[in-house]
C-alpha cells in the first residue's frame, strides 16, 4: 500500500489519467453550464437568483473537503514523517483557497438580492472567512519558512486548529441563530432541494472536481520536478 503511494508510482499513474481529464473537462463544463443557467427551473421564492447556488454550494463543499484532506495529510506527515504527503498538501492548498474565495464572493453576490445585504457577521459567514485566513496562513507557512522541520510543525498546528474550525463551519447553522439558512443537502436524511435542481448541482460539483484534479496534477508534477531538480545537483 505505502509502496504504491511512493512519489514515483503516483507520478506515473497521475500522468496516465491526466489525458482523460483534459478531454472530458470542457464538454462536461459546457453541459453543466447549460443545465444550471438555462434548463433548470427558477426557485418558487428566489426566482432566477437561485442559480448562484450552483457555483456557491459545490465550491463551499470543495473548500471544506480540501481543508479536511490537507489537515489529515499534514498531521499524518507530522506524526509519521511521510514525505510524499508534503508534496500532496502543497499541491492541494492553492486549490482549496481559490474555492474558499469563490464560495465567499459568490455567497456575498447571492446575499444582496435575497437577504438584502452583501455581508453579515453571523457564525457561518465569519467561520468561513476564518477558514480563508487559515488557508492563507497555511500557504505562507510552507512557502516562506525555509526550515523544513519548523514549517511542518507550524503546518500541523494550523491544520489542527483549522479542523476544529471546519466543524464550526459545518455545524454553525445548527448551533446558533444565523442569517445563513441551514444545510439543504444532508448525507443522512432528506434533501430539501427539488430533483430538477439537484441535476445541475451534481453536474457542477463534478465539473469542479474534475477541474480540481487537473490543477492538482499540474501542481503535483511541478512539486515533483522541483524535488528532482534538487536531486540533480547530487549526481
Amino acid at each position, binding site marked *: 500500500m505505502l509502496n504504491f503511494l511512493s512519489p514515483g508510482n503516483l507520478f506515473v499513474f497521475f500522468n496516465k489519467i491526466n489525458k482523460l481529464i483534459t478531454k472530458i473537462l470542457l464538454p462536461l463544463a459546457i453541459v453543466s*453550464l447549460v443545465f444550471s443557467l438555462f434548463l433548470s427551473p427558477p426557485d418558487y421564492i428566489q426566482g432566477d*437568483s437561485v442559480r448562484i447556488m450552483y457555483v456557491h454550494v459545490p465550491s463551499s463543499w470543495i473548500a471544506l473537503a480540501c481543508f479536511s484532506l490537507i489537515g489529515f495529510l499534514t498531521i499524518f506527515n507530522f506524526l509519521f514523517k511521510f514525505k510524499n504527503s508534503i508534496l500532496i498538501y502543497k499541491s492541494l492548498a492553492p486549490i482549496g483557497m481559490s474555492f474558499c474565495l469563490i464560495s465567499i464572493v459568490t455567497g456575498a453576490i447571492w446575499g444582496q438580492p435575497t437577504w438584502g445585504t452583501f455581508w453579515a457577521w453571523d457564525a457561518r459567514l465569519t467561520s468561513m472567512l476564518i477558514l480563508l485566513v487559515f488557508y492563507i496562513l497555511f500557504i505562507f507557512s510552507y512557502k516562506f519558512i525555509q526550515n523544513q522541520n519548523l514549517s511542518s510543525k507550524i503546518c500541523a498546528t494550523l491544520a489542527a486548529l483549522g479542523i476544529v474550525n471546519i466543524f464550526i463551519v459545518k455545524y454553525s447553522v445548527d448551533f446558533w441563530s444565523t442569517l445563513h439558512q441551514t444545510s439543504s443537502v444532508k448525507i443522512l436524511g432528506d434533501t430539501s432541494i427539488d430533483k430538477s435542481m439537484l441535476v445541475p448541482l451534481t453536474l457542477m460539483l463534478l465539473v469542479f472536481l474534475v477541474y480540481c484534479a487537473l490543477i492538482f496534477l499540474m501542481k503535483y508534477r511541478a512539486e515533483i520536478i522541483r524535488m528532482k531538480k534538487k536531486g540533480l545537483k547530487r549526481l
Partner: protein
Amino acid sequence: MNLSIFTMGGYGLYVWSAFAFTFLVCFFLFLKSRKSLKKLESDFKDEVKKLSAEQVDTLKKGKISKEILTSQSKAK
C-alpha cells in the same frame, strides 16, 4: 431576440457576475499553475543538458526523471 434568459427576471447582474467571478478565479489559477509548471520543466531540461552522458544514463533509470524527460519532448 429573447432577452429574458440574460436578464433572469432582474437577477441577471448577480447571476452572471457570480458565474463570471468563478470562471475568472478558475482560469487564473489554471494559467498560473501552467506557467510555473512550464518554467520548471524547461529549467529541469536545461540542467540535464549540462550533465555528462554517464550522469544522464543514471538519471534515466529513475521512473520519475524518465517520465519528465519523455513527456516534455512529446509536448514540444
